[in-house]
């Protein structure tokens, strides 16, 4: 996944270590003898305004996704949110009347963002669509951090043949254009549900994380504290789990944000191609694909999911960049 790979090695990255903010933190850390873990409140205060906006947006998206699922599965639609799959103009056997909704309606009090081409509530579909993005992004991050992180930390620490073997397999997987390999993998499955899509994308996320983890593990392995641990006779396993991995993990977690941005785009592309989670489940990508047919009549129905998708990706990038920079400060401090 070539675009995410280059993320931690931004060419403009080292300059930030020289900025006043970073030297202050470094000095603080040096005083205390070890890097200080900042509280959420401190992190929030350190965020530039735009990063704050991005963080709030991400919280809204995650909250919306969870709310929509609660509504669907726990409260059976009792919470105030329209049903994403009801065609509001359809005949309702319970009341014996046709619904008063119309396809491609403009925004109204009942339908905040109007209705789509078969009169379903766009706002509800958007909120429900965020669940798919959330799950795919989280599972891929989990795969990446747990499997890729473990693998990368391990081979960066033990080196030797294991490293050569693992890294050449990783290189082969990365030798494919990411989306093409994903399409080839996805085409194997006849049923494409959320589980299959997340696992396939998760599996394909492992190589990039492995590379990041290995690079960091190599650097950490050369630090004095690892030498000290060796000198007092710690077992390799305990060095790996108590010295290496705890120091590789923060980098991986902030990398996960930027990687998630890429994953959201990839899932969006897959949905747009009609090869992700199957209809009628709404995803941002398939909403865009369905609405683009009506672009001559109502461009707004394309606009909403496009806007939400792009803003989410932008926010993930912003917040991810912020944490990576903070991580670089931390790295300089240990």
């Amino acid at each position, binding site marked *: 996944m070539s675009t995410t790979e280059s993320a931690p090695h931004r*060419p403009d990255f080292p300059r930030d270590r020289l900025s006043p903010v970073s030297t202050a933190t470094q000095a603080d850390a040096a005083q205390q003898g070890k890097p200080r873990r900042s509280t959420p409140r401190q992190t929030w205060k350190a965020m530039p305004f735009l990063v704050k906006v991005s963080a709030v947006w991400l919280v809204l998206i995650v909250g919306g996704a969870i709310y929509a699922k609660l509504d669907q599965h726990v409260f059976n639609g009792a919470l105030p949110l329209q049903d994403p799959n009801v065609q509001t103009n359809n005949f309702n056997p319970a009341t014996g009347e046709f619904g008063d909704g119309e396809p491609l309606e403009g925004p109204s009090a009942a339908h905040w963002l109007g209705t789509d081409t078969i009169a379903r509530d766009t706002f509800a579909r958007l909120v429900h669509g965020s669940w798919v993005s959330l799950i795919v992004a989280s599972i891929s991050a989990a795969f990446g951090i747990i499997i890729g992180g473990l693998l990368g930390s391990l081979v960066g620490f033990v080196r030797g043949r294991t490293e050569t073997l693992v890294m050449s397999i990783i290189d*082969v997987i990365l030798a494919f254009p990411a989306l093409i390999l994903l*399409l080839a993998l996805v085409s*194997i499955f006849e049923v494409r549900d959320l589980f299959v899509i997340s696992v396939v994308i998760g599996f394909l996320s492992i190589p990039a994380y492995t590379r990041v983890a290995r690079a960091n593990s190599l650097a950490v392995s050369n630090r004095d504290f690892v030498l000290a641990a060796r000198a007092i006779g710690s077992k390799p396993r305990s060095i790996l789990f108590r010295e290496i991995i705890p120091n590789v993990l923060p980098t991986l977690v902030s990398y996960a944000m930027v990687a998630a941005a890429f994953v959201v785009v990839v899932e969006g592309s897959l949905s747009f*191609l009609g090869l992700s989670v199957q209809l009628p489940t709404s995803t941002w990508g398939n909403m865009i694909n369905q609405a683009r047919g009506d672009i001559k009549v109502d461009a707004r129905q394309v606009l909403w999911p*496009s806007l939400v998708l*792009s803003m989410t990706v932008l926010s993930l990038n912003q917040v991810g960049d912020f944490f990576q920079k903070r991580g670089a400060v931390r790295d300089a401090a240990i």
Partner: protein
Amino acid sequence: MGKLIATRLVRLVLTLLAVTFLTFSLTALLPGDPVNAILGVDAPRDQETIDQIRADLGLDDPFLVRYVNWLGDAVQGDLGESYINRGQSVAGTIADRVPVTAQLAFMAIVMAVILAVPIGVIGAYKQGKWQDTASSAGVQIALSIPNFIFGIFFIWLFAVQLQWLPASNWNRLSDGVLANLETAILPAAALAMTQMAIFSRLVRADMLATLQENYILAARSKGLSDRFILMRHALRPSSLSLMTIIGINFGALLGGTVVIETLFAVPGLGFRLINAINQRDILVIQGITVFVAVVYVVINTIVDLLYAVIDPRIRKS
């Protein structure tokens, strides 16, 4: 230099073997019997026909034997026949569609570079001023918008609102250059946007570093104009990193063509791949995947080698 070429070529061959093996294994993993796909759902199935097809396809051989046979054929340009469109050779389909995708990719890279260089240079030259802030913000936003959204926006603006260009369809180059460009420019532009953002960010960062060099100071003290220094002295070293990032991003670009070709109904490799996936046409999926991966690997090797040719420091290390 000779040694460098030799090691890169050996690595290339090994990677190609691994990549082809992986693609082949993917298709071997497929659930469901390809025989069913060939016979169709309604065909009468007597054991004899089935055995015949299995023998023809060599499905009863061990996996490695099948791989070696398939690879031998593939090297000679035989990737098998489409299951769905009987008689259509996979290699023929690919050959038919490569020019379209290649043209789109080429146009996208050219457009991206033409846009990215001035944006990056202005960002570096006016570092910290409003021009820099504006272009960096634009680049951030362009990076976050997926290419298909750019594509739809271009369709909405240029095809629906302004009605300057067609929303989809494709005219071959043989129909005339202008007719071809009319259909190619929007998809290429949609592909170019993300690349443009990545390239211009790189150019900016690179230029910032170059502008600190002593030779820039020397050029300035000679009284050369800023424009001359920027274009001649500062930009040239950046072309190296630009070339590398074009190579690295080529994979993402190829992935992008799949989505963009589907959106604009452009009859390229990507559009065919999506068709094949929807029809579960295994050999076509396999053929296109292997072809694209091989092209990507080869292009990256070429970029590596070119880099060494241009920059003597790499040659020595």
